[in-house]
């Protein structure tokens, strides 16, 4: 086990270095920072002096090492667009995306797992068929169109829910929360729903496939043959076995939620990380983009590491296969 953890950890460090290198390359090769700081009037000698002062003339390796050192110390530099420290901007945007993602994930798991089970148990039933048809539509509908449809239905036609922005929030330290604010959760419903819909179809399909496979195994068939009540077989024998991959589902969903939150946040003008990234791309705000890249890379690596390690704990076959 120890060896497996060590190897997996070193892999993660390697991936993070690669991501940091990408971010650094973006930083280094997208435009000339000195030109952006000074302007045309500054004489070339002075520009050269600034360049040396900033260490831009140092060897590549030295610059990269310094970049990584700064990242590790949490020194992310300043945004070109707002002149704010990038760390502050990320910190301000994080709670919005965090709550949106958590609620969306909760919806997709709480609805997706039961729905996946249902469609596996009664594949020919009317409910299953309609659910499956809906997932096909869900996969084909672009996330932004789902968002617009929700806005139109609940915001324009029915007028029930707010359609853009975060609405009311409460601050707890630096974290701002919608869920705890009175009325704040109403603003969260539509974005979370539109983000959850696509994830929900994925969860459903995965649980369904897993469940169908488990139902085909001998111990289930034997239990049924023995006359154990059906619901008991499904809930006590089949469900636990098909839930092991749910960890993987959560890992996969995490990626999907990060990616699609960019789209959802754009549709609902939700002031989170995704909207920050889009603005930064449009304004060529390189420092924010490269920090976003590193930050997302880090989140991915941590989640994947956690999922893999949990897997190794739960499923001994993983450990054996990895050569122990």
């Amino acid at each position, binding site marked *: 086990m120890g060896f497996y953890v060590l190897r997996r950890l070193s892999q993660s460090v390697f*991936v993070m270095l690669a991501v940091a290198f990408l971010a650094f390359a*973006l930083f280094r*090769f*997208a*435009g000339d920072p000195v030109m952006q700081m000074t302007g045309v009037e500054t004489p070339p000698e002075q520009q050269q002096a600034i360049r040396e002062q900033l260490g831009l003339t140092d060897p590549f390796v030295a610059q990269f090492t310094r970049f990584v050192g700064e990242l590790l110390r949490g020194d992310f530099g300043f945004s070109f667009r707002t002149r704010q420290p990038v760390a502050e901007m990320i910190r301000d945007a994080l709670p919005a995306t965090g709550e949106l993602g958590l609620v969306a994930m909760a919806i997709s798991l709480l609805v997706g797992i039961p729905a996946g089970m249902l469609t596996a148990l009664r594949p020919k039933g009317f409910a299953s068929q309609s659910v499956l048809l809906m997932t*096909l*539509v869900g*996969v*084909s*509908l*672009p*996330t*932004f*169109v789902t968002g*617009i449809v929700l*806005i*139109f239905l609940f*915001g*324009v036609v029915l007028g029930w829910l707010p359609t853009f922005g975060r609405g009311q929030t409460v601050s707890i330290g630096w974290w701002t929360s919608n869920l705890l604010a009175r009325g704040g959760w109403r603003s969260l419903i539509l974005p979370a729903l539109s983000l959850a819909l696509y994830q929900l179809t994925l969860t459903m399909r995965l649980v369904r496939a897993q469940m169908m496979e488990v139902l085909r195994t001998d111990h289930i068939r034997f239990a049924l043959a023995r006359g154990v009540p059906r619901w008991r077989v499904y809930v006590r024998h089949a469900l636990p076995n098909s839930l092991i991959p749910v960890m993987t589902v959560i*890992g*996969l969903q995490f*990626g*999907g939620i*990060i*990616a*699609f939150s*960019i*789209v959802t946040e*754009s*549709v609902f003008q939700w002031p989170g990380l995704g909207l920050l*990234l*889009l603005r930064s*791309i*449009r304004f*060529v705000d*390189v420092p924010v*983009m490269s920090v976003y*890249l590193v930050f*997302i890379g880090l989140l*991915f690596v941590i989640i*994947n590491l956690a999922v893999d390690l949990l897997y190794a704990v739960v499923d001994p076959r993983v450990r054996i296969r990895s050569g122990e």
Partner: protein
Amino acid sequence: MKPGSRAKRNDGEFAYLFLRSPAAIVASVLVVLTVGGALLAPWIARSDPFDPGTYDLTDAFTPPVWSPEGESRFVLGTDDQGRDLLASILYGARLSLRIALSAMGLAAVVGVSIGLIAGYYGGWFDAVVMRIADVQLSLPAILTALLVDGISLTIISESASTEFRATVITVAIALSLWVNFARTTRAAVFVERNKEYVQASVMMGERPRRILGIQILPNVLAPLLVIMTVDLGRAILLEATLSFLGVGLPPNQPSLGTLIRIGMNYVFSGEWWILWIPATFLVTMVISVNLFGDFLRDYFNPRLR
């Protein structure tokens, strides 16, 4: 079952299954209508939405022809600039399709070549490429496309030509789609490589390129065809999403995604057609491509039927 054997089934069975599947028939009719309309845009549309000389601001916000204030000149109405919506949609779909098709083609060529080489030779190339593929598979395609697109837009200057930006978007989408092609091809090559007919060719001194191209590749065509259809749908969606987010094609070359973004401004006011007609067109196109892909998959893989 060996991956390619279904490709050799006779055409009669394809026609039989096709005619028995209403979803496949509806899907292909819709594909023909949407794709055909896009291809024939210059002949169907009465004006060119990319040419400011052909439309007039005084025509702005004309509703579709079936509403009371509609005009027969503009079948689907006009947008905020007075552009004919039908023309915009057809030209936009043409642009979207061109990017999606070339992105899918590029992804297929790159992915299949990598898969063939990795599967046949193995070794360090295989190890490195498949590790990259694993990492990429954990990233959703839209994130890859957005990051590649965003980073390239940062590096190239704002003034870069439309043509160049279209190329950047094509490459960004292709980069997020190649993995499926590579993995499928590689897995199939692994199976074929050790079969007797391949070993016989190796023994007879046939060149690897010939073995891969003439003997192995035809055997993996069936699954590749399915991936191509599915990925065409994904590519259309990716392009639309990028344009919707405002990091795709520039506004003077509106693709379907750009049209929907423009329409978003009118979701609260009465001009519903500016938003919903392009959105419906996009969704119809993607769903029908996906349905057709599902049919192809079931046809080639009868175990799922």
